[in-house]
């Protein structure tokens, strides 16, 4: 496997959900890639399709959801073409995921150490005390004090921050090539949040683990990512290296998003709202889903398809009239 090829390539991924009130096109022709060892941030407001994209990559979509189009190529293998059995072999071993609200994301009636051990036994071919030792080692690696006691603890006895550490231990147990972190620090305290993100960064550096970091918080994404994918209403609207994105955002939505995010030193007057709301993803949608909120729209914006322009190498934008 050549390491110049991206680790993960998502190509034209589309996901639909069937609901009582019609079909929701939650993700529409989303494309991006993740290279070996890098951290890619995905940012967007609620309903932008960032979590759905992640779950589709993992093959963990809710039964009402369906991938209608596209490919997910991980280490040269199309995960969508293969069956559930194939995906199961990748999951937890080479491709891991951690979730928001860690306390409910762990089995409430199984000691957390056992839950880590389950993963170790499954993927690392360890058994008996060696699996247990490995689980204890992982608890120590994620800096949980007193691993011996924490091993026996149940999620309800632990704080949200510690539960998230346990989930990270499960995810990195088998040294995956890619970790998808879906809002890993949302809902945790500021100091805990920083500690969790530090931990993820440390693993990423030590093990050359690539990370797909998903958050609604532009500050978190900006601080932690090498590259950023901006999503809006199921579309990727812009993709660029972090510094470049903040220095010169080209999509009107990205610019608005940056302008509306509070940052130290900014006054209330400096912050500009984004007009309108995320469009209803049911029924007929215009080619550009930002059209109704955009103040730069021209008649050509109503004509399909949604453009995808590479302005400079590595900086693409889905807009006919980029800034």
């Amino acid at each position, binding site marked *: 496997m050549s390491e110049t090829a991206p680790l993960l390539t998502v190509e034209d991924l589309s996901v639909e959900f069937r609901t009582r009130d019609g079909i929701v096109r939650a993700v529409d022709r989303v494309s991006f890639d993740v290279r070996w060892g890098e951290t890619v941030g995905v940012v967007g*407001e*609620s309903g932008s399709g960032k979590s759905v994209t992640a779950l589709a990559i993992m093959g963990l979509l809710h039964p009402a959801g369906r991938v209608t189009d596209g490919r997910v190529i991980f280490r040269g293998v199309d995960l969508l073409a293969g069956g559930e059995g194939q995906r199961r072999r990748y999951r937890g071993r080479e491709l891991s995921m951690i979730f928001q609200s860690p306390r409910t994301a762990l089995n409430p009636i199984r000691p957390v150490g056992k839950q880590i051990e389950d993963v170790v036994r499954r993927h690392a071919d360890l058994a008996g005390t060696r699996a247990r030792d490995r689980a204890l080692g992982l608890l120590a690696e994620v800096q949980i*004090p007193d691993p011996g006691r924490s091993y026996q603890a149940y999620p309800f006895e632990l*704080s949200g*921050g*510690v539960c998230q550490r346990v989930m990270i231990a499960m995810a990195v147990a088998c040294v995956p090539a890619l970790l998808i972190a879906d809002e890993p620090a949302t809902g945790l*305290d*500021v*100091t*805990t*949040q*920083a*500690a969790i*993100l*530090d931990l993820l960064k440390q693993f990423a550096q030590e093990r050359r683990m690539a990370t797909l970091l998903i958050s*609604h*918080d*532009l*500050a*978190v994404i*900006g*601080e*932690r990512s090498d590259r950023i994918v901006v999503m809006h209403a199921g579309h990727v609207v812009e993709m660029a290296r972090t510094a470049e994105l*903040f220095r010169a955002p080209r999509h009107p939505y990205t610019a*608005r*998003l*940056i302008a*509306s*995010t*509070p*940052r*130290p*030193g*900014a*006054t*209330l007057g400096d*912050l*500009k*709202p*984004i007009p309108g*709301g*995320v469009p209803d993803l049911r029924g007929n949608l215009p080619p550009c889903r930002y059209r109704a909120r955009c103040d730069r729209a021209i008649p050509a914006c109503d004509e399909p398809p949604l453009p995808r322009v590479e302005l400079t190498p590595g900086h693409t934008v889905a807009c006919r009239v980029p800034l």
Partner: protein
Amino acid sequence: MGVPLLEVHEVSRLFPVRGTRRWLHAVDGVSLSVMPGECVGLVGESGCGKSTLVRLIARLLDPTGGRIVFDGRDIGTVPAWRFARAAERAWIQMVFQDPVDSLNPRFTAFDTIADPLRRLGVAPERPRLRDRVWEAADLVGLSRELLGRFPHQLSGGQQQRVAIARAIAVRPRLLLLDEPTSALDVSVQVVILHLLADLQQKLGMTYLFVSHDLNLVRLLSNRVLVMYCGRIVEAGPAEAVFNRPDHPYTRALLSAVPVVDPGERRPRIRLAGEPRSPVEPPATVCRFYGRCPEGFERCEREMPALRPIDRDHQVACHLFESRPGTTLGE
């Protein structure tokens, strides 16, 4: 300096811990004052007691001890269940964190806004009531067509506007804002913050703005209180606290806030371990001791009191008592 609108003296609130005879000290001897027309920010992490404190001030909860003085009258002695009939009820209102949770799902926007007007006797008769509801809706920028809708038919931003309209309909003097934007998307958050700033100007209200997000608190507040484990550890003008934090906890908190531009990052102060349990914490140990990177033996012997280190700036830390007038080595 005029007379404070709100003065809280050594207020505390204990809750029984289920299944034991022990008590949880949610708020433990907190004192603060709010001047008319100010916006005071209250920051702290989840479980630090800030929600309990605002509910004590809002008179939704009864304090275990201490005094709550509003406009010169001790309102802490009126039991919460009877406070609905107190004269001050209309003067102290509140906006809650989650608009979905704080709006009655079976009330239309109109009924929600009209409820305090009806109950608090400001505008009982029908045509006048409608005018007052419309007026409140106009103030928060809620179009009148939306007034007939139920909460689930409104967007998150519109829901929060309804909640704000309800709170300001009776023209309160003190508006308590309990994380008013943390359930909203960032694009809506800005809109609501602008709205709150405008309303304060227009109606001359006083704000107590509670949030865990320091970036937000600094946008609206003149003065900031930092709470940790049931106690206030630092208080001072917003500029001073954010630019020159003194208490080790404030410093750690500020250093953990994510910043977009890597150039602006302060060196991270890492905190060890977990916060101290609020269940019957020892009265003679600083609450931050054990996590504090600067802690020393005196912190284990004696609880530091909130003391002025500068004009208007107070810190509860022994570092400043032993070396008065100096700040931590920067």
